[in-house]
Every structure is written in structure tokens, then in C-alpha cells.
């Protein structure tokens, strides 16, 4: 759901950039406070892995494809929605500047959708569902699915404000495609958490023990 430059008028794109910059500043504050020597390699691996997996577009029905976003995964593993903002911002900058994936003027909107909304929805739905299931995997799947689905709906609203999509049809088509792509997001989020929890149970320990 990388928005290209042509989809949003410049004044609106500037507003999204300003909002994004506020969250980027907060994510840097999170990094300064929370990033221990232990966690730095994990941040780097998650960033690199999310960049790589975002290049894998998986076909879905209706001549469409989708890839994982990774915000829920980053937020759950590192225990903060700001971790997703931090990591997704880095990924989006490299994608936009080097590979023309996602516009530069509209990058603020992409950071809001994938980093901020993806991260916050992913993190808080994981925490909300954890006590219900008392295991990380089902909540991780739900968090992944919801994070992508809500981010896609937000994108549709931005497209409607931009005049690019009509609101109803935009919400319907973005919702339809991303409800399916969300299954990929949820599945990979739960699987990656299984792998990390197996390799390093101590890393996951402080995020599993909701509420902090």
C-alpha cells in the first residue's frame, strides 16, 4: 500500500509529513530510552527482515497481490508501537529513495499508515487479545491482520480526502483486498514470533507478560 506521489496533493502531503515527523521524534525518544545493547541487533534484524519480506508480493485473488508490512511484528517483539515507527520509517526511506517504491512527497502518509497505524493497532490489539488466549500466537495473528486492515482503511480515507478515490468504493476495495492480504500478515507475524520465542525466549519474555 505504498502511496505514489501523484495520489495526494502537495499541501495534504505536507500535513501528513508534519504528523509523521512528530511520531518519528517520539520514536527516536523511545530508541534513546529503551534500546539496550541487547536489543540493538534485534532492531537491525527486524528492519532488514521487514525490508526483504516487503519485496515478496504474494498473489491473492482478483489479479492482485500483497506483501507483509511488519509493523505489528516489530511492535510486539520490541514491546512498543514506537519500535514499529522507528523501523518502518527506515524501511520506507530506503524503499522510496533507492527503489522508487512509495513517493517522497507522500512518504509522511506512508509512515503514518504503515509505521504509526500499523504499529499502534498491532501492539494494542496484541496486548488486548493476549489475556484471552494466554498464548502469543493467536493474538499475534489477529494483531497482524488488524494492523494491515486498519492501515488500508486509513489509506482509503486519505485517498478520499485527496479526491483520488470516492470514499465508499475506496473503503470497499481497499478493505476487500487487504482483508485477504491480512491473512499473510497475520500468518507471518505469528510464525516469526514463534521463531524468535524459540531462539531467544528471554527476548519475548518482557512483552508476553502483559500488562506491564
Amino acid at each position, binding site marked *: 500500500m505504498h502511496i505514489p506521489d501523484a495520489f495526494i496533493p502537495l499541501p495534504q502531503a505536507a500535513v501528513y509529513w508534519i504528523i509523521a515527523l512528530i511520531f518519528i521524534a517520539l520514536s527516536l525518544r523511545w530508541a534513546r530510552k529503551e534500546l539496550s545493547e541487547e536489543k540493538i541487533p534485534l532492531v537491525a534484524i527486524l528492519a532488514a527482515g521487514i525490508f*526483504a519480506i516487503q*519485496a*515478496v508480493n504474494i498473489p491473492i*485473488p482478483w*489479479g492482485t497481490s500483497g506483501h507483509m508490512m511488519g509493523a505489528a511484528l516489530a511492535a510486539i517483539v520490541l514491546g512498543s508501537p514506537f519500535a514499529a515507527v522507528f523501523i518502518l520509517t527506515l524501511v520506507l526511506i530506503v524503499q522510496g529513495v533507492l527503489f522508487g*517504491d512509495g513517493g517522497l512527497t507522500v512518504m509522511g502518509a506512508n509512515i503514518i499508515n504503515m509505521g504509526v497505524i500499523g504499529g499502534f493497532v498491532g501492539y494494542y490489539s496484541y496486548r488486548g487479545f493476549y489475556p484471552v488466549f494466554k498464548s502469543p500466537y493467536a493474538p499475534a495473528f489477529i494483531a497482524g491482520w488488524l494492523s494491515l486492515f486498519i492501515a488500508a482503511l486509513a489509506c482509503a480515507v486519505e485517498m478520499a480526502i485527496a479526491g483520488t478515490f470516492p470514499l465508499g468504493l475506496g473503503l470497499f476495495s481497499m478493505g476487500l483486498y487487504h482483508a485477504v492480504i491480512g491473512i499473510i500478515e497475520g500468518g507471518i507475524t505469528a510464525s516469526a514470533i514463534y521463531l524468535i520465542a524459540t531462539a531467544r525466549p528471554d527476548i519475548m519474555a518482557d512483552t508476553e507478560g502483559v500488562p506491564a
Partner: protein
Amino acid sequence: MMDKKTLLFAGIAIALIIAAMAPFIASSNPDGLESAFFGIFGAKDLQGSSLDEEMAGSAEEEVTGITGNEYSFDSPFPDYSIGGMSKFGEAAAVIIGTLLVLGIALGLSRIVARRG
């Protein structure tokens, strides 16, 4: 339980394997946003699978007219391709990107964390 170094290298290895495979396994179908865009601008049925290339081109012109955002930027590796090279070039591009993200994330995290 893996130690820190093993975890780092295992993680990097997994990321690079995914990066190298990506161009060979990735679908070239439009993504969710593009598909919604082509559907709304009449280049594709919402639930159909064929894309009218001509209509797709004019849809892109039409949307620029609506938003007035004509900004364009020539990225060095557009669409994860390296000029003139096939899928192997794309794999190289994704690997370069993955290593770059890894390096920036490590470097920036170290700089930011030290300040605290």
C-alpha cells in the same frame, strides 16, 4: 537458547535468503492500493484479473490531474531493478537494500542509544 552473535547472524542469513528469493517468487500483479486504483479508474474490474494497460496509463495521467502532484524522482534502482539486468539484478538490488537497511538500523540505533 542462542547467544547474541548467533541470533544476529541467523537473522541476517534469513533476511538475505528472503531478499535473494524475492524477485523469483514475487507476484507482479498490482498490489492492493494499485488494484483499487485501477478498479476505480476503469482499467480493471474490482474482482477481475485482467488489467487494461492502455486504461492504466491514462488513469495515471488522470490522477495527476486531480491531485496536481506532478513531483517525480528518478530513483537509482526503480522497482528494485538494476539497469539492464534480469531477475538476478533484482535479487542483487533487494540484497543491497536489505544490507543497507541493516547497516542504517545498526548505526542509527547505536548513535541514538549512546546519547541517552
